[in-house]
């Protein structure tokens, strides 16, 4: 059944190709992976997605490099020189937006 998640559970979306479906599922999946990586290094479970990690003192040059490598490997992207802006890595939200742009999803 189109839009069904299987079993006896009620379908969440009527149409699997509903743009909203992709927006929610894909963005959440990307954000979740980024959050998992960031928390593995920062280990602050209370870090909110829009909080500035630079202002909190969480990002040094080593972590900045690791972030670039993580994004490139996890999402098979190439971070370009134009993307080398600290604002692109300041928060989980910002990194998610960078990935979405890189994937051509925005």
């Amino acid at each position: 059944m189109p839009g069904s998640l299987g079993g006896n559970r009620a379908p969440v979306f009527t149409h699997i190709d509903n743009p909203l479906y992709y927006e929610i599922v894909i963005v959440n999946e990307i954000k979740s992976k980024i959050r998992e990586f960031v928390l593995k290094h920062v280990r602050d479970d209370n870090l909110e997605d829009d909080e500035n990690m630079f202002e909190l003192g969480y990002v040094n040059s080593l972590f900045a490099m690791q972030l670039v490598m993580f994004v490139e490997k996890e999402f098979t992207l190439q971070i370009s020189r134009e993307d080398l802006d600290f604002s692109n890595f300041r928060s989980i939200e910002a990194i998610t937006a960078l990935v979405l742009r890189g994937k051509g999803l925005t």
Partner: protein
Amino acid sequence: MFGLSALGSDSRHEFRTYVDEVVYPFSNEWEERQSMPETVIRDFGARGYLGAFLPEVWGGREMDNLTFGLLCAELARGSVSLLSMLTVHTMTSQAILRWGGDSLKKRWLPDLAAGSVGAAFALTEPNIGSDASSISTVAVPDGNGYVLNGTKKWISFSAGAGLFLVVARCPDDGPAAFIITRDTPGFTIEPMTGLLGFRAAGVGELTFTDCRIGADSLLGRSGGGFSFVASHALDHGRYCVGWGGVGLIGGCLEACAEYARTRIQFGQPLRSHQLVQGMVADMAADLEASMSLAMRAAASREAMEPESIMITSIAKYFSSKAALRASADAVQIHGGNGCSPDYPVQRYYRDAKILEIIEGSSQMQQLMISRDVFTGVLTQRNRRRKRNDG
């Protein structure tokens, strides 16, 4: 079979033959002259070693991480000065490949791959070493470009390089990386001699006096010169040095095995004396441990894992310290001969100390490694304090 011999491959055989025939027999002489013959550097480039790590599309040999590591190790066995040149050349060429715009890549990567142009990496200053983010060389935007003023010190390959990656501070944006040619007006180079080690590495001091460069010299973005460009290059440099330590220990072991076989004391060859055996055994253990870490770093880098940065740091930290231990014991085993230029171990000893300092000192590696261990605890505590203060 142990040590580098266990990693048999056609490439390693090629590197070993090159070092045995062209490098090792002459390296003590180069160190005494405090310079590397131009013919050696040209030949090194012609063999594709300066372009070893660049993609074939740019004319490089596109070696994988392990093969490139083996090249670094074999070079260190023959001449750490030559390894030093390869290190800084590839640090700069990799930075251009990674962060350069199309025009910079097209202009320089083919020449860097062919070895027709050498490259050096300029970050350290007379008053700034480990605290690299506090550099004082400035690049002031001026019209369609920048004007540089400042001094860089301890720059390897500055005697022969035609191209320099220079990190300078932009007044508004912070550190930025620039690609500057040797013949740029306002840019002068003074050789540094009488150093403890790396004597043939062409180390020098660079001075920029109202040195005007174009906007297209900028590598990456202004502000990201240290956190992205220089850090990336230093990570590559640590990988080279990590393997360099492996090769240097291997060289110590080979020299000691030969010397202990032929040198007779108390009516027996040195190798029959248990205290000598103990030092040789420590050397072999350090070689295996260093090589294991370097191979782990190679595999992690090949997989492009973010953790590779920390593993590389650990490999560099361990192997450079192990190289100093091994070379000190190697001199000890050789006794008075170990202090003579007729044997390689005095050179290994002097160069091993430098391995502990370059591309981030052992203490900076300890800080990085321990910070990675403790980051979670500290950041949680700081965060709680910040919340409480708020």
